[in-house]
């Protein structure tokens, strides 16, 4: 039990970020018009591509002899980049279409 409390104290600023971000996420979306639901979903999809930073760290820390970590890390960076780049480009194309309609 004590370790759990220690853990909370040690990571308290991260826990604050989580709590505040939850409310921020809810507020920021607020009253989005339903036409924008899909582009917004797509944009959010691109943003959670930040996982790629974790993948880069995994890849960069891997020892040159540790092939499992190297291969998995390499794959993770590719997948993460697909998420980020693909996500932003698709969102842009969607919004382009949206503009023409108007």
């Amino acid at each position, binding site marked *: 039990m004590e370790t759990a409390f220690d853990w909370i104290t040690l990571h308290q600023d991260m826990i604050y*970020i989580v709590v505040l971000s939850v409310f921020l996420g*809810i507020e920021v979306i607020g009253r989005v018009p339903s036409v924008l639901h*899909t582009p917004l979903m797509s944009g959010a999809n691109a943003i959670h591509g930040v996982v790629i930073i974790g993948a880069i760290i995994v890849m*960069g820390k891997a020892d040159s002899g540790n092939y499992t*970590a190297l291969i998995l890390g390499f794959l993770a960076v590719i997948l993460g980049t697909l998420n980020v780049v693909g996500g932003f480009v698709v969102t842009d194309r969607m919004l382009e279409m949206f503009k023409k309609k108007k």
Partner: protein
Amino acid sequence: MELNILTICYLIGSITFIAGLKMLSHPESARKGNLVAAAGMFVAIIGTIFLYEEEGVKLGNYIWIFVALSIGTLLGTMAAKKVKMTAMPEMVSLFNGMGGACAALISIVEFNHLMHRGAEGQSADGGTLLIIFAGLIIGTISFAGSMVAWGKLNGSIKDFSFKGQHIVNLLIFGVIITLSAYLIISGDPAASSLFYVIFVLSIVYGLFFVLPIGGADMPVVISLLNSFTGVAAAFGGFLYDNPVMLTGGILVGSAGTILTILMCKAMNRPLSNVLIGSFGGGVSGG
């Protein structure tokens, strides 16, 4: 000095994500918002590659990182440019699955790393294990679910359900939680193969979770899985004490959940109806 610059890069990233999301929810500024978030992402990625260090050691394997980045950029741009306008949602689902898989892979590598150190006598602490497991389970479910959603939208996967499927689903989920709890509490390196059992079960759970849901409800499901991946990314942020992954992930997690609910409201149906409505008959109005 360099670490200070990295901190500023991450700060820029976090702010652009918030501002980008805000702009994306207004018709006039939506397109600019997307670009703002993309620019922030670029800054955060470049900062990580060149400035990140752990215990004074910089990242290595630059060549491989750049090769992987180029492959991903090339494939991602091509796929996103070529896709037909009508097939956009399935593309989003595919990319979402990639993000989930990325989070799961990070957890797998970090778990191996921990177990390796555990074998050398350093015991793994429960908090880190909990984060790794959460990232693995949520990321994998999101990946498997998104692949099914993608298949359903392009017509290659049909609806599939059997009697009592949600009981089976609950059972699988229960087993996943029990096994994870056992591994986290015991911290036993000898039982580390159970990690892969959890991985496989999470894939099965993800498949069973989406398979029975009707194709017309896929956008809602994709939005839900999207917020799952956000949470998985946030666990990565916890793992590396990385504020930009944390804010980006949680922001998408909460905004995505609200968006899911809004999408259900637009269809005049509660979320629970979408998720379990197709069980037992499937005569829900849609």
